[in-house]
């Protein structure tokens, strides 16, 4: 890294620090601890982010395998590959995995990796909490899969409607496993959202006012707020469900005045924003990629920000359109339809702004950009069907059919997974220091794009022809066989494309072309760090003077000096204008978050088997947090200060 230090010291009377000296001391102070214990104690957002992304991707593969098994079973009518018991577990696992263990975590994971770099910071605001969130997520996912392989996988759908999921109709531990897994992943998602909000609010580089923030950071800010307000609903609902099952409460038991629809309201109040929690970060990916590959800033920055915020807002008003067939008041239908259709407007604004950006830019058709073009096509289709099912008379026909399956796979795969793959190709060089192969990337893209359409487009028609969701088999006379076979062939194509991706990654890690700091000539701050970034990200905290700092100062970023280098220290700035405000201590690596996560896991898992689990787990958790919070007293400067005061 080349550093330019002013010949005359900024502050008269203080000896100038040589850049090499600063870097040397930072390397010492921020070095990761060696060995397994060091690995388990890491609080670096980059190593945790990488673990998070890889774990989420493993769950993506597991969920994909489950999807493949389902497609194999449905490839022809009355297929005997797996029976209803296995099928019901598998479709539940697929949904639960993709929603709770892949889609939300992977978006958080990428955010936790990128956001501090993009805003010129050294780490997230609460690094230990970040580690804790990851471990809890890992344990939750691992718990679900261990139980699944023990034939105790949940089998009531990722939505676990009561009374089917209640104590009477689902005895045994299967649904308890689901409820606790959800609680685990809620904790990690909530922790990540607090983490990201405070990181974005308080640790931006000086000068990065909120309206100079990259659109991706905006998207993560909106997403984090949505998580903050949405996740408590499903966490409460799953807690209510667990209580109904474990201690005999009556939240959802109609016989004692409970209510089956209460579950649906609570679940969908979370469940609808959930879709946008997955989708909004993808909008951020798309904006980043579009700007870089058209070599101009995204057109209409304020409009883009406003539409993301509007999407976030509106997402909380639409949950009822998941309940159109439960017998909602007829008066309400047109209100709900209007509210549901309205959310198409901000989406439209964004698509038009991107098209305008591309039109007025000079596009380079690298793989990330291809994924963006594919995203627009697929997301449009998903959006159209979304508007259609906002209409109550039409929705009563296609609700709970394969039409809906098609719709939300277009929205989630087209709208979120395609941008995510684009993001993988785009930021892979930053994370690993090596480029992914373009030729394999094109194969990856086209196979995925074609496979996606072959799999899911026919499902629209299947739904209209009357095929309900979540059926493990169907009769030959229904005439659904041909389209199902086609869909299964498409699924194979998608699987091949994912294998191509894995090959590409494996190959690049070994023999990939070295990337350099800014291989794409991009505009945001993460490209000012080395690839891969050092543990402290930037030797000096950069100062931002525009929305495109790297285009404004391609050779030399303005920066501030003066953070301590003998201990880990970060700069805290003001919320709106990002003016330097204080210096904060960054925690040392520590094993306590892992211990606290283990205690959390003990609490939730034993609770399934005995109410005493609550007592045991709470005591363990308390001890873990005491260990976490207890000051280690390493910094004499700080201790001297308090002695001077008292």
């Amino acid at each position, binding site marked *: 890294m080349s550093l330019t230090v002013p010949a005359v010291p900024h502050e008269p009377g203080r000896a100038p620090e040589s850049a090499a000296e600063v870097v040397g001391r930072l390397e010492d102070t921020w070095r990761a601890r060696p060995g397994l214990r060091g690995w388990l104690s890491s609080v670096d957002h980059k190593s945790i982010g990488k673990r998070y992304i890889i774990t989420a991707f493993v769950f993506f593969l597991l969920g994909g395998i489950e999807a493949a098994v389902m497609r194999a079973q449905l490839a022809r009518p009355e297929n005997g590959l797996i029976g209803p018991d296995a099928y019901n577990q598998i479709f539940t696992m697929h949904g639960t995995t993709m929603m709770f263990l892949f889609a939300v975590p992977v978006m958080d994971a990428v955010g936790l990796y990128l956001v501090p770099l993009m805003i010129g910071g050294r780490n997230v605001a609460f690094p230990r909490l970040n580690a804790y969130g990851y471990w809890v997520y890992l344990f939750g996912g691992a718990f679900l899969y261990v139980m699944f392989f023990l034939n105790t996988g949940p089998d009531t759908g990722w939505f676990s409607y009561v009374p089917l999921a209640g104590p009477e109709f689902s005895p045994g531990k299967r649904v308890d496993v689901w409820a606790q897994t959800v609680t685990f992943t809620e904790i990690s998602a909530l922790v990540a959202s607090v983490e990201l909000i405070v990181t974005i*609010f308080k640790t931006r580089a*000086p*000068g990065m006012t*909120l*309206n*100079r923030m990259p659109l991706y950071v905006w998207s993560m800010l909106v997403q984090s*707020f949505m998580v903050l*307000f949405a996740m408590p609903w499903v966490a409460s609902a799953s807690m209510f469900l667990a209580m109904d099952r474990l201690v005999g409460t009556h939240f959802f038991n109609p016989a004692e005045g409970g209510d089956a*629809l209460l579950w649906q*309201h609570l679940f969908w109040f979370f469940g609808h924003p959930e879709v946008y929690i997955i989708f909004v970060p993808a909008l951020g990916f798309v904006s980043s990629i579009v700007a870089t590959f058209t070599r101009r800033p995204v057109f209409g*920055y*304020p409009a883009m*920000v*406003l539409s993301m*915020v*509007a999407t976030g*807002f*509106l997402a*909380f*008003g639409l949950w*009822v359109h998941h309940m159109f067939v439960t017998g*909602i*008041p007829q*008066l*309400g239908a047109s*209100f*709900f339809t*209007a*509210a549901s259709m309205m959310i198409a407007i901000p989406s439209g604004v964004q698509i038009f702004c991107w098209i305008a950006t591309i039109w007025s830019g000079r596009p380079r058709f690298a793989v990330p950009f291809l994924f963006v073009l594919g995203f627009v096509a697929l997301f449009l289709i998903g959006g159209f069907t979304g508007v259609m099912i906002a209409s109550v008379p039409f929705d009563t026909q296609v609700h709970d059919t394969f039409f809906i399956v098609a719709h939300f796979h277009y929205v989630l795969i087209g709208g979120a997974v395609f941008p995510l793959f684009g993001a993988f190709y785009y930021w892979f060089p930053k994370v690993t220091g090596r480029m992914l192969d373009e030729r394999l990337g094109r194969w990856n893209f086209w196979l995925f794009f074609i496979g996606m359409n072959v799999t899911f487009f026919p499902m629209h028609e299947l739904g209209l022809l009357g095929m309900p969701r979540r059926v493990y088999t169907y009769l030959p006379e229904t005439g659904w066989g041909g389209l199902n076979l086609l869909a299964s062939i498409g699924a194979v194509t998608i699987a091949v494309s994912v294998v191509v991706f894995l090959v590409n990654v494996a190959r690049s890690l070994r023999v990939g072309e070295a990337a350099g700091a800014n291989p794409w000539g991009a505009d945001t701050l993460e490209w000012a760090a080395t690839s891969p970034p050092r543990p402290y990200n930037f030797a000096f905290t950069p*100062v*931002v*003077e*525009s*929305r495109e700092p790297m285009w*404004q100062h391609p050779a030399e970023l*303005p920066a501030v000096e003066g953070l301590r280098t003998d201990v880990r220290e970060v700069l805290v700035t*003001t*919320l*709106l*204008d990002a*003016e*330097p*405000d204080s210096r904060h201590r960054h925690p040392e690596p520590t094993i306590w978050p892992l211990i606290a996560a283990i205690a959390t896991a003990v609490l939730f898992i034993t609770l399934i088997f005995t109410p005493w689990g609550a007592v045991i787990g709470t005591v363990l958790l308390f001890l873990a947090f005491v260990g976490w919070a207890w000051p280690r007293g390493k910094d004499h400067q700080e201790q001297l200060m308090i002695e001077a005061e008292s």
Partner: protein
Amino acid sequence: MIAHPGEPLGPHQLWGAWSWEPGIVLPLGLAAGLYAIGLRALWRAAGPGRGIRKRDAAAFALGWATLALALLSPLHRLGEVLFAAHMVQHELLMALAAPLLVLGRPLVPFVWAVPPGWRRTLGRWTGGDRFRGVWATLTHPVAAWSLHAAAIWIWHVPSLYEATLRSEAVHALQHASFLGTALLFWWSVLEGRRHGRLGWPGAVIALFTTAVHTSILGALLTFSTRPWYPAYGAVSAAWGLTPLEDQQLAGLIMWVPGGLAYLVAALALLASWLAEPEHTPRRLPLGAVSLVLVGTLALAGCGRSGALSFEEAARLTGGGNPARGRLAIRQYGCGACHTVSGVRGADGLVGPPLDGIGGRSYIAGVLTNTPQHMIRWIVDPHGVDSLTAMPATGVGEREARDIASYLYTRR
């Protein structure tokens, strides 16, 4: 307010059912009159569109009209027989009239509407610690939010709501608390952000959370399987609705259009904030860093485009020090009457707000806006305009220069 005289309203009587209650008409008329008189006085003194912008006045007029529509028109009588109509009335009060009235910044014209002598007394009184303490507490974002939420939820408790249908006084109290807490809420959201209490992110979150909790109350009403307020049941049939449908409609009105009002407000706030130009790269306000070094608070908004940088302001005023000026504004209590961003406690409404004063043509409606005039005006207001309400505060020439330089940095 006479809520329920005689027979329940039938559909055929609707258009004749205007309510001319003196208890409503008089305050409404008084508010309009005061605003008009004060606005005339203010604009005559400061120039049209100064102090209160034309769109502020338009917002007030619109808010006033909404208020009149809600309280005087047949809607009011209809609210006695249909819950849904009553809900429309409440939403008009809380989600439309209240924000518009706040945007109209009525306190400024109201103060200008009274004779100068009274104005001074009023200024002294409102400048007092006790009044300011109460006002600061009531308009504290958390307090205003909670009061408004409490008013909305508590009044929907069946026994209380039904009491409004029986007693005029309770009904008046309900409307007063809806409107009053709504005004506080919107003040903390729309005005509070100028005073550093609640930045726009806080305002957006306050609006979002209010949208959510009112939507949920609406949803509870919509999805209930029995009417909460049986008192409506007797007459709603005449209007073609069952009591339950009436309640569902009311819930939906609170939920969807009501919720959208908050959404629109939040987006508008955000849009106005984002619209601040970002064409020219702005330098990091290093002046702020040096101020932080001496331990003062960071200067919100310093260096925003449209205003002068500290260096430029210092040059323009011939050596004024904006940082010292900021302290002087606080010391001399300018904030008791004027609103100045970046100065804690400077949120008075007696005199015109001083932000953006660099962009105005006249000072005090008398002097052209030059730094020299500004300094002269600050040092000796009565020497410039013997009738002015602005007191001579004992500011010296050097401090006045500092104050002027600070004011020119305000957007």
